[in-house]
Every structure is written in structure tokens, then in C-alpha cells.
């Protein structure tokens, strides 16, 4: 048998020998790219439908709410007080929501499924990969997907005539920032989840955040105390950030929105890193 061709050389090939002689810590083997390469290969062969549905969801919302509902609503006031169409008002908000949904799905349900049912990580973690390689690879893939969606959605906005300033192109990196914030936290939270019932709590938090974070109407409709509550939530900062960028009007609040996500990313990565053993090594 050909497997025995190396029987004269019991030590094996020099490359496998070299791979054995590298030194790593307990959690990380500097091989995130192998996890990323696997994800790209898997997407190429099977995930097209999922990818497409993730792209169309915000587009369908934009058409039905923006164009349909927008016909009744008429023009509204944008971030700078100028009049803009209702579709142009909600489009950046929908982009923020889609960045959130994609990142949360990838870092919670997807990780939970691959962990407990597909046993994908179980296989990965019996190799030289450490939990940190897997976590970073998966977060990177989630962000890459977010980048593609954001680019596609921004293009749709352009085609629908909802973009009036070159600044709007910055919505794409800003969406990735939003996705990063949610993805880093989502994976940490998933490490506490053991059953499907617990996973449902994630949706229980996400849906109200989607509906009430000034997505479809301004924050000013709420009484003051509710406004504070909404402003403490991450999605509101994402909605406001993208809405400002979409019309190219920046205020000190812009820096607060960005800062909110930077802090969220740092805390989320710390949470996930701290929970890696619990997440992957039972």
C-alpha cells in the first residue's frame, strides 16, 4: 500500500517533522488563515443560497418600507435637519440592522451549530489549531461577509438614487465596524449557551432592538427615559452613525458612536478570549 511508502523512513517527511517542532501557547498556533481558507472553500461549494438571502433581506425591507410606506410618509428630516425621502432615511438604518443581524447570526447560531451539531470545531481542535485561531478565523469570515453585504446594499442605495454625497462610501467600513462589535460579543455570549431555548433569548433581545432603535422613525417620539434606554443600546449608535455618514454630516456625536463600537469590540474580544476554554474545551 502506498501509505507504507515511507516505511523506510519512520520519522516521516521533513515537513511534518518541522510542523511538530514549532512552539505555541495553549490557545493559539498563528494559523488563522487555515480557518479562513476553510470557510471560503465551504462557502464556494455550498452556502450560496444562505449568502443571497442575507443580502436580499435588507433590500426587500428597503423596497417595501422605503418605497411603499414612504409614499404615505413623504419627506422627513434627516440628521442635519434637511428634507430627505423616507427611503433615504431608513436605508442606512437597515444597513446597520443587517450588519448586526449577520454578525450576530454568524457568531451565535452558526457557532452554536458548528460546535454542538456539525462537530466542526471538534475536528479542528484535534489538530494544531488552538481555540483562538478558530475564534479569530470565524470572526474574520463574519466580517468579510458583512463587508460584501454592505457593499451590495450601498450599491443598491446608489441605484435607487438614495446616495447624494461621496461620504456615503464610508458606510461600508462603518458597517464592518458595527459587525465587529456584535460578532466579538456574540461569540462570548454563545459560550454561556447550552440549549436551543437559551439561544432563543438572543432573538428576544435582537428583535426589539431592531424595531425601536430609531430605525423607522426618530428617537424624539419617545419620552426622555425611553430615549436614554435606547441610546444605551448598541444598535442605536450604529443607526445614527450610518445615517450621519449617508448624508455626510458629522457632529461630535459621530465620535461617540464610533467610540461606542471601539469599546464594544475591546470588551467583546476580552470576553470571548476569556471564555475560549469554556467555549471550545469542555
Amino acid at each position: 500500500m502506498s501509505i507504507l511508502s515511507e516505511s523506510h523512513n519512520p520519522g516521516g517527511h521533513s515537513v511534518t517533522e518541522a510542523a511538530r517542532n514549532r512552539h505555541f501557547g495553549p490557545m493559539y498556533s498563528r494559523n488563522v488563515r487555515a480557518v479562513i481558507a476553510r470557510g471560503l472553500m465551504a462557502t464556494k461549494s455550498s452556502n450560496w443560497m444562505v449568502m443571497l438571502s442575507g443580502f436580499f433581506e435588507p433590500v426587500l425591507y428597503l423596497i417595501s418600507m422605503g418605497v411603499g410606506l414612504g409614499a404615505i410618509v413623504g419627506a422627513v428630516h434627516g440628521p442635519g435637519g434637511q428634507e430627505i425621502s423616507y427611503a433615504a432615511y431608513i436605508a442606512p438604518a437597515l444597513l446597520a440592522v443587517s450588519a448586526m443581524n449577520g454578525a450576530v447570526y454568524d457568531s451565535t447560531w452558526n457557532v452554536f451549530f458548528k460546535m454542538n451539531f456539525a462537530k466542526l470545531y471538534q475536528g479542528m481542535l484535534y489538530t494544531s489549531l488552538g481555540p483562538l485561531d478558530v475564534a479569530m478565523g470565524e470572526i474574520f469570515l463574519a466580517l468579510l461577509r458583512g463587508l460584501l453585504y454592505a457593499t451590495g446594499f450601498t450599491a443598491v442605495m446608489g441605484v435607487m438614487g438614495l446616495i447624494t454625497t461621496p461620504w456615503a462610501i464610508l458606510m461600508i467600513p462603518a458597517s464592518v465596524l458595527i459587525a465587529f462589535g456584535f460578532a466579538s460579543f456574540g461569540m462570548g455570549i454563545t459560550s454561556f449557551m447550552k440549549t436551543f431555548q437559551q439561544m432563543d433569548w438572543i432573538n428576544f433581545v435582537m428583535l426589539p432592538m431592531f424595531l425601536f432603535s430609531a430605525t423607522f422613525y426618530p428617537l424624539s417620539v419617545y419620552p426622555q427615559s425611553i430615549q436614554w434606554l435606547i441610546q444605551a443600546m448598541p444598535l442605536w449608535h450604529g443607526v445614527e452613525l450610518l445615517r450621519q455618514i449617508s448624508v455626510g454630516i458629522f457632529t461630535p456625536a459621530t465620535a461617540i458612536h464610533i467610540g461606542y463600537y471601539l469599546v464594544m469590540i475591546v470588551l467583546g474580544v476580552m470576553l470571548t478570549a476569556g471564555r475560549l476554554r469554556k467555549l471550545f474545551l469542555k
Partner: protein
Amino acid sequence: MQYVITAENLTKTYGDVTAVDGISFSVPAGEAFGLLGPNGAGKSTTMKMIGGVSQRTSGSLSIMGLDPESHGPEVRAHLGVVPQQDNLDEELRVRDNLLVYGRYFGLPMSYLRPKADELLEFAQLTDKAKSKVDALSGGMKRRLTIARSLINEPRILLLDEPTTGLDPQARHILWDRLFRLKEQGVTLILTTHYMDEAEQLCDRLIVVDKGRIMAEGSPASLIREYSTREVLELRFGSERNATIGAELEGIGERLETLPDRVLIYAHDGEAALEQVSARGLRPVTSLVRRSSLEDVFLRLTGRSLVD
């Protein structure tokens, strides 16, 4: 002697449940070492701790001189793992499963491409190279999992019930492959609840029950120590089996009453059968066979291995 694996007082508890209860063993390089025991004995948990994917509660463990808990990626570079349930990457095609798995070890494609083809041939899956994984039969998936575990030319191969669910022919093919790997100096660590598998493959084994080691030795020495040369199996029908014991008293060295049959342990099984007939007892069926590890297990724990 140079040990590739040394475990001392290895313990793992999940909440109130103690899965592994202070077991100690050492495995020298090149040995085929078996963990034999019923489901839930702690075999798989021990395997997971060796691979560094499960954290031990207490005790010490050293693989190739390294602690898998603090050097997981380094330890696993030496290991090939065949888990109890196939965890192939269903989103990738057959050959890609091997290539991608090799990348996880940081191995270059220039090495992996010819190696993957070699392993596909080894697993008799060359014509399935471009198939999807879920189109493979159970036996094919198992062979692919084993081929995958060899991608990094491991020094130690961990096999968790490698032939469970395979038909007899596939099992024999697999045993042959494992035997050849052993000849090349690969250390095999094998869990099983099949006696014949343990007898065929293992130089030495530990019998585990409820997380503890019940006995340790080569298959032949365990049989010598804990059983007689032959066993007479008698079936009197389920009603009679329970009550016949008293009437068989004194025949052979030891008597074991199971729900479906009575076992008489004797040096000479035929002679024991003659004594049974001489007492006027007429079993429905009778069988004289060699003692096996199953009998060792029965003796040590009072129950059979596969419940």
C-alpha cells in the same frame, strides 16, 4: 523505557459525575495500547484529555513530554485522532477534507496534494475524491476519517471505537491497516468494547469500568490471570437459567449465571459438559469455547461489556 504517554491519577468530573476516577498508565513508543470497557466507562473522556480538548480535574498527564493543557497545539501536532463519531467537514468534498485538515497543522500544499492522493488510495476512496461527504456510506466515512487522521504522519494515533458500526469485512481491512501503521512504529491508543478487536490489536490493555482501572496486562496474561482456559456455555431457557445454578454446583472452577445462559469456567470444557450430562441435566444448547477478554470483564465487574 521511553514513554510517549504518562498519566498519573488522571481525574475528570462533570458536576457530580466522576467520568474518570484517578487512573494511571504509561505507554511506551510503538505500543498498541487499549482501553477496554463498556459505554460510559470513561474511555472517550480519557482520549479527550490526551488530545488536550478536555481539561482534567486533577492528576497529571504528559504526551511526548508535554502537558496537553498548556501545550495543546504542540501536543496535537504529534497526534492523529479518530473520534468515536465521524466529524468530517460536510461542507467540503472528500479530497478537500484531507487538504484542509492538513492546513490546520500548518502543512504546505506542496506536501499535502500528493499526500492526500496517497491517503485516498490507502482508504480506497480514490474514485470518490470529488464526491460530497454526505454521499459516502458509513464505512467510507470511517475510512476517510482514518485517512484524515494520518495527514500529519502522527507519532501517536488515538482511535476511539474505530470499527463501531462497520461490517466484518471493513473491520478486517481496517485492522490490517492499523497493524501496518504499528509496524512503522506508530503508537496506537485504542478504545473499544469489542473483545476480538482488543485481542487482535492490543499489545497491552487496561480494563476500565466506572472511571477506574480494573486490570492491566496483555490480552493473554489477563485471560490467564482472571479466567480459565475454556468456558462451557449452557442455555436452559430463561426460566430455568436462574434456578439451575445449585444443580450445577461443583462442576468446573467457577459458575456465572447470566439472564440468557449459564457459564461454567473449566480447564477442560468437554469434560465439564460430560459431568453436566452425567447429572441428568439437558441444556437446550451447549457450547465449549476458549476464554476471552469478555470473561475477564465479566469476572471483574459482574456484567458483560455490551449491555
